[in-house]
């Protein structure tokens, strides 16, 4: 595994001298992020938190193309892009990081190259790998910075994948480690968005509490999709991610459903399944802080 990761992974970093924890903003950074800092709920401390945060993005297709650009532009300090797919011609209408020259190349590499040009404050690591439990474990335990961010509560994961087995696998891994999961999906004219956080909102359950592991929903390849619908969901996912990093979540109880034909949103109230195999080890009530031993629970659940 290690050799493969070393072969098909890399770092895009235009500003490697300045990637230690950021405790103060430079003059340039203050100017660059001024419109964000201006928001009382963000401020300088909030911007520092964004610059110190680590975000894993699984899937750099439609959703991933949009969210990586938005998060980098906002000053997220560390992005980890995971995708084993190659760019195809049929991807171009919605996967806006790519162009005709990208066809046949790895999405993770192309995305890292394009996003690196957006903001030198973002360190990009890319992995041309399929998300699996073993890969995720290797990633978490082989990267000291990532592990530190995890222990400090500065790590979140965005599910931008395109199939149910990967979505379930991501959910199980995040639930096992109490890593906040921001899940978005889109197909035809429908989109779904939710935040799963076993520390802050365990009573709302996880992705598997909503959708059974053996369900087989169709995706964009079967149902079709319009690029702007993907952009709407990706923007909501990016906004939700930033809010979560800044601890601005007003509530995490809803499943948000978007109807692209009616241009409407609905909120449904989620509840934890007491028999869920993925989040059964979670506490029943929100926790202000989990101990290191609680966070390092490692379980592999087959749903």
């Amino acid at each position, binding site marked *: 595994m290690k050799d493969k990761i070393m072969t098909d992974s890399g770092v895009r970093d235009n500003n490697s001298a300045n990637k230690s924890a950021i405790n103060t903003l430079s003059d340039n950074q203050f100017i660059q992020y001024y419109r964000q800092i201006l928001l009382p709920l963000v401020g300088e401390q909030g911007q520092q938190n964004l610059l110190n945060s680590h975000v894993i993005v699984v899937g750099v297709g439609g959703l991933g193309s949009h969210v990586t650009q938005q998060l980098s532009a906002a000053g997220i300090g560390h992005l980890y892009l995971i995708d084993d797919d190659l760019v195809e011609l049929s991807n171009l209408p919605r996967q806006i990081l790519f162009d005709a020259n990208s066809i046949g190349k790895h999405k993770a590499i192309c995305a890292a190259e394009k996003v690196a040009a957006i903001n030198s404050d973002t360190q990009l690591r890319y992995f041309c790998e399929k998300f699996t439990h073993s890969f995720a474990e290797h990633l978490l335990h082989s990267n000291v910075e990532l592990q530190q961010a995890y222990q400090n509560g500065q790590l979140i994961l965005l599910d931008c994948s395109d199939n149910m087995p990967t979505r379930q696998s991501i959910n199980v891994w995040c639930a096992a480690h109490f890593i906040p999961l921001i899940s978005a999906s*889109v197909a035809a004219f429908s989109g779904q968005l939710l935040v799963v956080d076993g520390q802050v909102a365990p009573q709302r359950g996880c992705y598997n509490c909503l959708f059974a592991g053996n369900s087989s*929903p169709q995706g964009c390849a079967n149902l079709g999709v319009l690029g702007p619908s993907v952009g709407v969901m990706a923007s909501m996912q990016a906004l939700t991610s930033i809010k979560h990093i800044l601890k601005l979540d007003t509530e995490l109880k809803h499943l948000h459903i978007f109807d692209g034909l009616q241009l409407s949103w609905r909120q449904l109230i989620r509840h934890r399944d007491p028999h*869920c195999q993925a989040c059964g080890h979670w506490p029943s009530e929100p926790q202000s802080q989990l101990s290191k031993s609680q966070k390092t629970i490692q379980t592999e659940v087959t749903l």
Partner: protein
Amino acid sequence: MITVYVNERPLEVNKSSNLQQVLALSVQSLELKLDNIAAVHNQHVVPRSKWSTNLCHENDRIEIFSAVAGG
């Protein structure tokens, strides 16, 4: 008998029906499989393990929908 509304359409069911029974009656006409759906009862998503203990009442709103997996 009571009337419940499944995806906005009225459905007559026995007074003591639970959500599992209503869903089983409804999925065929919607061309869905029980494995592939999530169920909402009066705005609350009901976990699968509670379908059989969730009792339905007159004018309850039930919604059936599927996961969207595309990205």
